[in-house]
């Protein structure tokens, strides 16, 4: 990790400039993956991806496509830096988090170059705030190597059905067991806590099921402490896709519609509790 020591030279163009009329489009999405203090930002011409990792077993990404921004210019093919996510979110919400209709914070985000701090220009109601957040050397991220071709089971559910279930998960259980099967119980979430076991069954013909493609019965256990933070993303999303591959790795994709009706994605990968093999780096 190295911090910026160079002073910005005047007149040099920024490597990344992104503008948003409503900073909430970014802040709410970042909140959905905010379970660690630090995150890695990766910007390409497609947009920005913010990644957070936990315990080398779980990884979450928030994607904000370039189209969401009112202005998005990238001078290089890609830009990566590590940043304090807590500070970033605090700055984005510096005018408060209340969402009054009609008022929104405008954002202009500028990143000059490697080693430079991230500049945020925020404006609401004529008041301007400038934030400078130091960036750090990006850390190597785990490659979960989750391949769509190796997906064994996949279901797409309306988030509404899962929200309450996730919020009420028995946290005295160390694991969350997920069973996906072409036969009963089709899709089952189980916990094993102090009070006893609890099972949540979703039949494949439920109104909540948008898609059900299960080929083989799979039961996998994941550390509940890793998955519980995903509840935030679930709360924001309208749909969630749940996939497992042949190694039992779990992929959760949340489709989030922002205030303007634009779609963003948050994706979480988690490796199963048993036989934790080191994901290829």
């Amino acid at each position: 990790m190295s911090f910026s020591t160079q002073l910005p030279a005047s007149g040099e163009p920024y490597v990344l400039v992104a503008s948003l009329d409503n900073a909430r489009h970014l802040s709410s999405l970042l909140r959905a993956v905010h379970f660690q203090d630090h995150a890695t930002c990766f910007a390409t011409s497609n947009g920005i991806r913010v990644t957070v990792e936990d315990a080398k077993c779980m990884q979450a990404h928030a994607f904000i496509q370039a189209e969401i921004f009112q202005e998005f210019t990238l001078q290089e093919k890609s830009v990566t830096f590590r940043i304090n996510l807590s500070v970033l979110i605090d700055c984005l919400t510096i005018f408060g988090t209340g969402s009054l209709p009609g008022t929104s914070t405008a954002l202009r985000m500028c990143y000059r170059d490697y080693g430079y701090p991230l500049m945020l220009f925020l404006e609401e109601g004529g008041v301007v705030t400038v934030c400078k957040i130091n960036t750090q050397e990006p850390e190597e991220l785990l490659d979960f190597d989750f391949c769509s071709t190796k997906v064994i089971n996949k279901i797409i559910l309306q988030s509404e059905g899962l929200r309450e279930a996730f919020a009420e998960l028995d946290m005295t259980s160390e694991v969350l067991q997920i069973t996906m099967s072409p036969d009963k119980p089709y899709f089952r979430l189980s916990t094993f806590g102090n009070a006893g076991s609890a099972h949540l069954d979703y039949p494949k013909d439920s109104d909540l099921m948008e898609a059900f493609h299960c080929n083989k019965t799979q039961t996998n256990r994941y550390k509940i402490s890793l998955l519980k933070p995903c509840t935030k993303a679930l709360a924001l999303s309208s749909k969630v896709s749940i996939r497992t591959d042949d190694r039992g790795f779990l992929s959760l994709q949340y489709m989030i519609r922002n205030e303007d009706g634009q779609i963003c994605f948050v994706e979480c990968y988690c490796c199963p509790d048993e036989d934790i093999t080191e994901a290829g780096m």
Partner: protein
Amino acid sequence: LSRIGDELYLEPTDSGLSLRSVNSSRSAFASFLFAPLFFQLYQLGEPQPFRCKVLMKSFLGVFRSLPSLEKTVGKCLILLKPSANRLVLQLHCKYGVTKTHNLAFQECELLQAVFDTQRCASSFCAPARVLAEAVVHFPQTLAEVTLGAGPEGKISLRNYVEDEMEPKKTMVTELWLAEDEFQRVAVTPGSSITFCLKEFRGLLTFAEASNLPLTIHYDVPGRPVVFTLDGAVLEVHLVLATLLDPKSDLQCPMANGSVSHLPLPSDDLTDDLESYMVAMETEEEPGVPPSPTFPLHTPEPAQSDPEEEEEEKEGAVPGTPPHKKFFCSLFFGSVLTPGGPSLAPTQEVLAEDSDNDC
């Protein structure tokens, strides 16, 4: 029930599913009896009688969010599986979703407070709303309240103030309810009892929601007060120990316990013996209330001051009567009348009601 104890006792019987709880000092007991008609399906299996208890917290965890439950849950299936040692609660929700909770339970002995509403000198019946509105005036932290019968059938409610508290620092709130607020009043004028407010409030909340008439039976201070809600498919009893009048004869009347009325347990009911022994222990010290916190200088019954000094040190906690040394523990009958599922002889009174219901 969770306001009373940490454990929920379940007993399926012919007259319905009984849910009970008792507090740790055994000075508050409540039972809810849901008649078979309350359920869509009520089936008793083997073995009978079967009693178990589960942790209140675990049970409540299943029904965590009431508003969303009302919206999403269609029906709830309750299965007691003795072979697997599991109480299964299955909620059938919207969209075909099924939530199954398998709770571990412990088999246990009968939990039954011995009380007899027929032997209560005073009783009155009121809509729960009237009393709920009355207790609203008392602070949430108030531990005990005194209920009294005044002239012309008026009922008063007053916060209980320990004598040793400085008169200057205490605020006394007293309110009177006129006879016409009640549906029926049959009280001994001048009578009064003091009991714990916390559990009573819990019952009032339920009573208001259920719209069932609330009847209060009480006798003399020291004998338990019984609150009853009587409905077609539900019968609720809350039995609270009441404060002994410190100025009166301190010999514990044992009336709370009615020990003398209890038949001896049959020899083969060894699991009941433990509870019975508790009762027997209290008999060994005649004249001394079974409350463990009762001070030892009983020889001076007339003087309230030295004993109350001791009480100062107890650090009374609202809602936990045992810290008040004058509360007697409710005696808990543990005996099965042979051939019957449950209940101690004094249940005779209640049996009449349930006969009407079934």
